[in-house]
């Protein structure tokens, strides 16, 4: 109970500091929401030039974009600000976090909860809604369940990627941008049918790193389309499993990182 109160206090402090500069905060809220909207608009722009990309129509691709948009936004909102870790490590501010009698990861997440990203969640959800509206889905209990589990597993997966990317700062202080290749890069990768990518690149991102199970495989299962790349129909249901593996790896990396941390300063 005491712990919860401590987290609530951290969160409240963050809320007050975020709203201290009101105009700036309002502009940030709107910009963030527009960010997700632009990612989706990009898909529409590309489909203006070609009606079929990588063997998929706009509506089918939107199913993948929608799952990704919602999953990424949810992960970014809850875990995304962990990329501030770089600053904590460089300045040695992590010391203050480590000496408190609370777990390190939740402290960093709550103390920096990016409320400015809140409006994104609504945009992400509506993209998923639009995708569902534009596709004629043959509903079964399995597919209804998949509609819930896929975005949430995707969010958990992206969350694990955020934590792993941020944890590189424990070994390599100025690594900030390195992680973007996997977090934002992963989002871009999963926004399109993975058939568009070259084969080695796809194997690496989709199967070795697991990004293929965030939106591509679940979308195929929802749409009832056979995978042109040959994975079986049920592979869409694997996303929770893939997310769990990612969380396991992230937990190990994080723990190693915290143990590796050496403070700085004079």
């Amino acid at each position, binding site marked *: 109970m005491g712990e919860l109160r401590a987290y609530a206090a951290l969160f409240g402090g963050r809320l007050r500091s975020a709203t201290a500069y009101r105009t700036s905060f309002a*502009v940030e*809220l709107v*910009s963030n929401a527009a960010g997700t909207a632009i990612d989706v608009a990009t898909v529409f722009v*590309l489909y203006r*030039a070609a009606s079929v990309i990588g063997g998929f129509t706009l509506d089918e691709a939107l199913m993948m974009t929608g799952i990704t948009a919602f999953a990424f936004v949810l992960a970014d909102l809850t875990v995304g600000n962990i990329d501030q870790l770089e600053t904590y490590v460089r300045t040695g501010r992590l010391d203050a976090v480590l000496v408190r009698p609370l777990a390190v990861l939740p402290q960093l997440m709550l103390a920096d909860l990016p409320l400015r990203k809140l409006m994104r969640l609504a945009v992400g959800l509506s993209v998923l809604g639009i995708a569902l509206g534009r596709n004629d889905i043959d509903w079964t209990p399995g597919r209804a369940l998949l509609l819930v589990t896929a975005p949430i597993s995707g969010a958990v997966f992206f969350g694990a990627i955020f934590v792993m990317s941020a944890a590189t700062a424990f070994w*390599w202080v100025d690594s900030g941008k390195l992680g973007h*290749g996997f977090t934002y890069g992963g989002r*871009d990768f999963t926004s399109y049918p993975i*058939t*568009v990518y070259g084969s080695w690149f796809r194997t690496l991102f989709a199967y070795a790193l697991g990004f293929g199970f965030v939106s591509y495989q679940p979308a195929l299962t929802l749409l009832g389309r056979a995978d042109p790349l040959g994975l079986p129909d049920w592979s869409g249901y694997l996303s929770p499993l893939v997310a769990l593996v990612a969380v396991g790896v992230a937990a190990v990396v994080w723990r190693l990182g915290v143990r590796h941390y050496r403070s700085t300063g004079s």
Partner: protein
Amino acid sequence: MDALDASVPAISPSRPFRASVVTFRALVGSGFRRYATYRQATVAGTFTNIVFGFLRCYVLLAVAAGTAGAMAGGYDARQLATFVWVGQGLLNVVGIWGWADLSERIRTGDIVADLVRPVSPVTAYLAADLGRGAHALLTRVAPPVLVGALFFPMATPSRWQTVPLFAASVLLAVVGSFGCRYLVNATAYWLADARGPLAFWTLGSGVLAGLYFPLRLLPDWLAVTLWVATPLPGLLQTPLDVLIERDPPALQAGLVALQAVWAVIMLALAGWVQRRAERKLVVQGG
């Protein structure tokens, strides 16, 4: 001791511009050296540029492959590959993102140190930014372009004018981008915190400068409006279009001239805003 004052002795009284040139050059050098010390960040950033290069290149090539003439927005596959990979390198030279020095100094009150200097903040920051751009030109362009050339067939310029025009276009893009970023940062004079405007800028500049997709994929009326009414296509799309020879030479020269007009407008605006801000500025901090 009564003769002591804060004036700087003229380096060469007979050549009044010399002092300005020497100062400007020193500031450019300091900008260059500052970024030269961030070696880890340079490597990490390059890696990310390469990942995004692959992502964007594959998607755009798939778009071209899905069209009748294998052309997307009037670009063939080679031109698209060049657009993406040179774009990933040029992005750092133009430096669209991640410059919040000025707004941070306004917020903390450190800006007062800039105001007492004998060089105006716009000039001083422009010099430092040119140094930053020069460093990026030497370190950040070659790696993504080489990786791109290794994996994809790329277009090479066939007209001699393209090379000087491209160089001019890149310089104008850096100056135009600096003007925009200065204005975005300067909102902190009024708002105290520029994180909102910066987020807005990061978003708008990325998509409207042609980083996410070539602007020629947009409907014509929209593309023309963007080019004429905003400085944004001049930050990335114009230099890239010049390099891959998307248009006939006369139109290309026209686009670069348009870029120059916008660069001058943005610098003038930055200067004007700075003067306005100085009249109302309350320095923060204690």
